């Protein structure tokens, strides 16, 4: 039970139930759809870019508490960031949820990024890591504009 609380922290449950930035922002300039064939869930991530700044970001879709919370928290974090920072965060997030060593890593001192630490619990649940990373991969595809659709597979 306590292990489960590590995964399903209040913050995650809250974002899962009442996701922030849900919907398509006005004047979105790029979007991408992410699929998780394992569960059939999809997420669409929208970005409004001005130059290299993420002016607005939103998402739509349905999914588990982990994926919705991850998408919701991601959108909060990315608003106003430069694409270079976004790219660095994407890499760091991936490391956070997949790499055991990342837990005590001093590099993770960014106050904004610290909020994502609550998602580090998925490391213990290999089958669920993709739930947390799908919104980020989808966002990345929208930034790159290279793929309209991505999948976890």
């Amino acid at each position, binding site marked *: 039970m306590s292990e489960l609380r590590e995964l399903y922290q209040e913050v995650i*449950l809250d974002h899962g139930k009442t996701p922030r930035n849900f919907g398509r922002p006005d004047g979105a300039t790029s979007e991408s759809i992410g699929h998780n064939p394992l569960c059939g*869930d999809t997420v669409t991530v929208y970005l409004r870019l001005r130059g290299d700044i993420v002016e607005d970001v939103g998402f739509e879709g349905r999914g588990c508490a982990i994926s919705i919370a991850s998408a919701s928290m991601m959108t909060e974090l990315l608003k106003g960031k430069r694409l270079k920072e976004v790219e660095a965060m994407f890499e760091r997030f991936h490391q956070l949820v997949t790499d055991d060593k990342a837990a005590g890593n001093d590099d993770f001192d960014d106050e904004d990024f610290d909020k994502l630490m609550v998602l580090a619990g998925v490391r213990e*649940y290999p089958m669920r890591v993709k739930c947390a990373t799908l919104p980020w991969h989808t966002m990345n595809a929208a930034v790159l504009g290279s793929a309209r659709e991505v999948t976890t597979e």
Partner: protein
Amino acid sequence: MQGPAAISQSSPRNIACRRADFPILAERVYDKPIVFLDSAASAQKPQCVIDAVNHCYSQEYANIHRGVYWLSARATEAYEKARAKVQRFINAASEREVVFTKSATEAINLVASSYGESHLSAGDEVILSELEHHANIVPWQFLRDRIGIKIKVVPVDDRGNFLLDEYEKLISSRTQFVALTHTSNALGTVTPAEEIVRLAHAHGAHVLLDGAQSIVHSSVDVQALDVDFYTFSGHKLYGPSGIGVLYGKADILSSMPPYQGGGDMIRQVTFEKSEFADIPGRFEAGTPHIAGAYGLSAAIDYLTEIGMEEVAAHEEELLSYAIARLKEINSLRFIGMADHKAGIVSFELDGVHPHDVGTILDREGVAVRVGHHCAQPLMDRFGITGTVRASFGLYNDKSDVDALAVALGTVQEIFG
């Protein structure tokens, strides 16, 4: 195939103690006993099946149908005995009507490909239903894209019942083939197979029943059903994975071209042409899953010893207990409560995604399947992306259902 594949001597009347026949269930996960409720995906293996596979590899293994030496003769004999055992288990008229494949999926692909391309043509209608597993949808879409057949789909009602009257409306002189599940893997709905076959034959159409689930839940008599093709896999039948069965009526199988080319399916090969073997060898190109046949044979012995009526009664008892027990959970909604159901319950918890339920149950030692169960069109029909599915096997008893109910309480506690 005697030897170590002995059947346990526990009383067939006392199925609950069958758990002891399955060594994996003595293992612990997260330091908890395993509550295995995912037999519909793949069943665990009794010791006798494990022993039979082991016996093959450690005492009798060699390639079959080729060697003139003792080991090959032994393995060939055992492989063909397994075929005869399958024939008796499903009451096929002849051993020639039993084709070994690698899975139920391959068996359906074989029919869609070989029968489909030789017997069907553009504009012919093939009837499927909303209950189908992807394995009985995608091969027919391949065929549609290759030769231009039309796919018609029988709907289900809100309880997941196969709508026989809708089927009757769809079927016509254009219907050339009917491919339907015998038991839905996602909801447990048992379809009215006799009526389905009778109506199809009345319109001159052949019928394939996907028996992957039903073969485990009750006795199947292909002659009584008068079905033209019947498919199932070994691994859901407490046997090994990697071996499946295609039953086909001899005259129909004989009219079909080979599915794959290779060794063991020919009579004579020159660079100009090849002559193909008679059935069933014609459809068994390449070295098959020899040890799998040993294991499947042992699994059939095991089930025959218990008796399929006992197996069905045990599941029915667990199913009604599970439905009664889970009904007590207010936020739980059953998906698929057909009038005739096998030992499968599908449900969702209000406001909690099936994957979150699955993860929490797992930590409580309860293994269930969550998601779309390879039946996405059926999920679409119910306007959901997935369900939580608990399915019952020989080793389950009421305490497993209780453990599930308690673990669902933990889910509610976490999600408030």
